[in-house]
């Protein structure tokens, strides 16, 4: 089945007075994927999600979500009918109880899943008798996830969905997202996170956003296949020429050993290291964290 992309943007920009939140974002998220958007604070993740949801108007550019234009009011309603959203604001409606929020929400969504609603209220340990205003931060986040998962949506737009959750609930939420995609082949999950291990665990595509620009947009497998850490050991000090080889993103030398972070041409780098007298050369897989730190230029090692 050849589905149109769940999200597609071209040249999407947003400027707040003198500050650029997004600079020409070109994004294509295939339907049925789990897409993790990562970036530092202020990179533009929240702005991206809010623009897609119609909460923020873009300064320029265009986009479509589940096939509808983001800059059209009528299309905006259609987008929101088929999209679930968990934003920064988890306060919900603080004066209301869980039952009241659900009673108001259900009629808006013809495909509302009461079975999932019940299941996740229990699984996420939502205190149903309390007013939302008396919930802990974690309970608010968990309840926001229940509302998103029960909508019967084709797209989940989630801004830091596990924010405030304890490790047990984080695990349950991640499992719920994976299960939701497994149960519905057209469901797309687009989420932002600071927790790279979460992205690495459930995402099949990753975007790295930095300073309003998308630095990477690729499948996680391809990203991790392309990136390797090459460690070469020499009899003497490693030759400086290795640092400037094509594909080397970052190098760190320690005694007779040098570690090279490579984004491409790994085989050539290994061969060149051997040609320059390396006694032993190994190429290791790297984590998303390594790739992220390299991409945003914040090299802590």
């Amino acid at each position, binding site marked *: 089945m050849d589905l149109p992309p769940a999200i597609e943007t071209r040249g999407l920009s947003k400027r707040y007075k003198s500050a650029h939140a997004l600079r020409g974002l070109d994004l294509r998220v295939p339907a049925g994927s789990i897409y993790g958007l990562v970036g530092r604070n202020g990179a533009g993740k929240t702005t991206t999600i809010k623009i897609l949801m119609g*909460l923020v108007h873009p300064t320029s550019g265009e986009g479509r979500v589940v096939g509808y234009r983001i800059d059209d009011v009528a299309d905006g309603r259609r987008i929101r009918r088929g999209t679930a959203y968990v*934003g920064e*604001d988890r306060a919900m409606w603080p004066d209301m109880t869980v039952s009241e929020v659900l009673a108001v929400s259900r009629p*808006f969504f013809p495909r509302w899943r009461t079975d999932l609603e019940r299941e996740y209220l229990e699984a996420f340990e939502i205190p149903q008798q309390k007013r939302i205003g008396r919930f802990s931060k974690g309970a608010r986040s968990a309840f926001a996830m229940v*509302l998103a998962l029960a909508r019967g949506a084709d797209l989940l737009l989630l801004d830091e969905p596990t924010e405030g959750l304890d490790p047990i609930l984080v695990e349950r939420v991640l499992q719920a997202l994976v299960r939701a995609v497994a149960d519905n082949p057209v469901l797309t999950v687009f989420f932002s996170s600071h927790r790279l291990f979460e992205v690495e665990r459930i995402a099949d595509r990753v975007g790295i956003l930095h300073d309003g620009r998308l630095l990477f947009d690729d499948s996680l497998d391809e990203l991790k296949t392309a990136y390797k850490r090459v460690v070469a050991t020499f009899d003497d000090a490693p030759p400086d020429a290795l640092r400037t080889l094509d594909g080397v993103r970052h190098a760190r030398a320690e005694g007779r050993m040098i570690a090279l972070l490579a984004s491409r041409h790994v085989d050539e780098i290994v061969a060149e290291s051997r040609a320059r007298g390396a006694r032993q050369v190994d190429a290791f897989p790297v984590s998303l964290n390594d790739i992220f730190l390299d991409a945003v230029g914040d090299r802590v090692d």
Partner: protein
Amino acid sequence: MLWFKWWLDTRFWFLLAVAMLAAQVLALYVSYPMDPQTSYPAGALGVLPAEMGRLRGDDFRGYVWVRWFSTTMLLMWPVYVFALAGTGFERAAGREYLLSLPVSRRRIIATRLAVVLTQIAAFTLLPSMLLSAMAPLRGQHYPVADAVVHSGILFVAGLGLFGLTIVLRTLLADAAAYTAAAALVGLVGLFTFIVDDFTPYSIFRLMNGAEYFFNHRVPWSGLAVSATMGMAFIWLSMRIVEARDY
């Protein structure tokens, strides 16, 4: 179901308004009859001194008008209108979830306005009807028609105030909006009470229905101006909300 959300949001202030105003109707009857020479009010908002002189010792209709429509309602009604007009959309908590529902911002606000205006109409009319219903208990009669017309005048004349609160609430932060609206109304009220030359042109004089009470004429032009201002403020507020980033 948006109306249900807005009802849940606003019910406290609505029920409080109905309960408090009903209690004040009871208080009005408990304090009746009074000696008009010693305990009649010395003045009322939007009533000229000469008119107060004419009302002193007048009939029960005059007593109700001065005590209820020119005092209690003019002082308390704006408080509940401020509270209800300010409740809802511009509260940051839960706004993102509200905007994620598949309805336009215009419909969200229009539904809220419909719910709140219905509540305001109800707490304007119901206590005034109670006045008519309870009058026989004191051996008096207060015409239902007067209660309805005075309530209608107060409601329409107050639309300007309602719209002003909505637009201030949209433009300013919570405390600043309420402070600005209350200060403006307080200033106009003070001016109305102190400066006799200003009184005939005051919004309070329009709201208490003096023209209808003294001359049995509905002040259509004044009501049209207030309603138009109210609608203009609401329209402005909607445009701001539609264009705003949240």
